[in-house]
């Protein structure tokens, strides 16, 4: 490790690094946002008593969980784009892939969170005259969300790390910028050390936020 190389990377190549960080954070936010909404929908569909809908949701969840993210990204970007009527930008294709992955894990986290709340809570709420939806909104979800925080934040960090796979379909996120800087400096060791540290700092901060939230929102 030479400090000169580190200096070159951090000073001369800072714009590349910074662009990568910004894109990684942007993609993470967008995919988590839509992933959570889609996850809620999937969790809801999965709870249907009507079998075909429940089965469909379950199939999507199992399929997406059973295939490596990288293969899914290739399928969406290269596979689907091979049809002439589909024209997807790399960023669109990549974000769809990451979003769907985050969604199926969120769906399972939400489901198990809701199921972990004692049935008596629903009964107590319903006997007071609360409708199913109000019981869910005011009694079950507030308790379930608190229990979901650790698993939820764990998925957030996994999604953040998953975005590094997007370099394979040509998206200029942090990992891709790493390659660019290596190309300019030939300092592989220093570049990947720094890129690794940047990811680590982002993930570690999220973990700390999670711990803080858990303590603040702890069920009495």
């Amino acid at each position: 490790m030479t400090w000169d190389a580190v200096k070159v990377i951090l000073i001369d190549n800072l714009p590349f690094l910074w662009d990568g960080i910004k894109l990684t954070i942007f993609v993470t936010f967008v995919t988590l946002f839509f992933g959570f909404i889609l996850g809620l929908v999937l969790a809801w569909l999965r709870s249907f008593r009507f079998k075909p809908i429940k089965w469909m949701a379950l199939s999507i969840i199992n399929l997406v969980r059973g295939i490596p993210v990288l293969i899914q990204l290739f399928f969406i970007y290269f596979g689907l784009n091979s049809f002439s009527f589909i024209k997807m930008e790399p960023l669109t294709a990549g974000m769809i892939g990451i979003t769907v992955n985050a969604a199926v894990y969120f769906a399972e986290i939400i489901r198990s969170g809701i199921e972990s709340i004692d049935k008596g809570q629903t009964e107590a709420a319903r006997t007071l005259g609360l409708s199913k939806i109000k019981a869910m909104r005011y009694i079950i979800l507030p308790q379930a969300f608190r229990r979901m925080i650790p698993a939820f934040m764990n998925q957030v960090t996994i999604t953040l790390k998953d975005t590094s796979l997007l370099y394979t379909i040509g998206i200029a996120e942090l990992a891709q910028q790493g390659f660019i800087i290596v190309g300019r400096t030939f300092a592989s060791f220093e570049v990947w050390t720094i890129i690794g540290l940047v990811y680590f700092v982002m993930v570690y901060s999220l973990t700390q936020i999670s711990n803080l939230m858990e303590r603040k929102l702890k069920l009495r």
Partner: protein
Amino acid sequence: MNVIAMSDVEKSFGELDVLKSVSLTVEEGEVVSIIGPSGSGKSTLLRCLNKLETVSSGTVMVNGQDLKDKHHNINKIRQEIGMVFQHFHLFPHLTVRNNITLAMEKVKDVNKKEANEKAMDLLKKVGLEDKVNAYPSELSGGQKQRIAIARALAMAPKILLFDEPTSALDPETIGEVLDVIKVLADEGMTMVVVTHEMGFAKEVSDRVVFMDEGSIVEVNNPTLLFKNPQNERTKQFLSKVL
């Protein structure tokens, strides 16, 4: 006037017949205790009265409304039947105040100020006004159950159902809960109480129902039922628990 009328109610869970041709009426202002061995169907009977369980056959009329009738809004019907559970089921994420005011605000659209005042009145009634800002986990079992009673009363129900309200309590705190229930009885609240507290059933009830194996075996006023049970099975049960 009958506020509760069950006739020929049957309830089965799969192969298991939990209630067998049960008929029971409760008049306005009456306190009816249900006693009997575990698994005799006492709790299931109670849970059929607010449709926590749907009956397999027979009819249940509550406040003149047939629970089977799909045109009735069950949420409306339930507002008039409060329920107190063995394990309290207080909402752990809400303060005592909000446990009591939640349904008033979200179901009856009572404004916050009015709901809070009502909550304070109810807390005074159960002797726990100093716990208004506490969370359920900071309360003893007896205190939790008194809050649960206050929460049920907040909806101003016409009927209160108690499902073994003292079975999960320390012997020391049973008395404070029973005292609250007694006050409600004196005020003329219609109540159905599933209980193992024979002394309490004797003292407070207008009638006592003895159940065994899903059937009502004997119904009588408490003095007669406890002193001079007619049925062999009742005698057997009472000789063990008294």
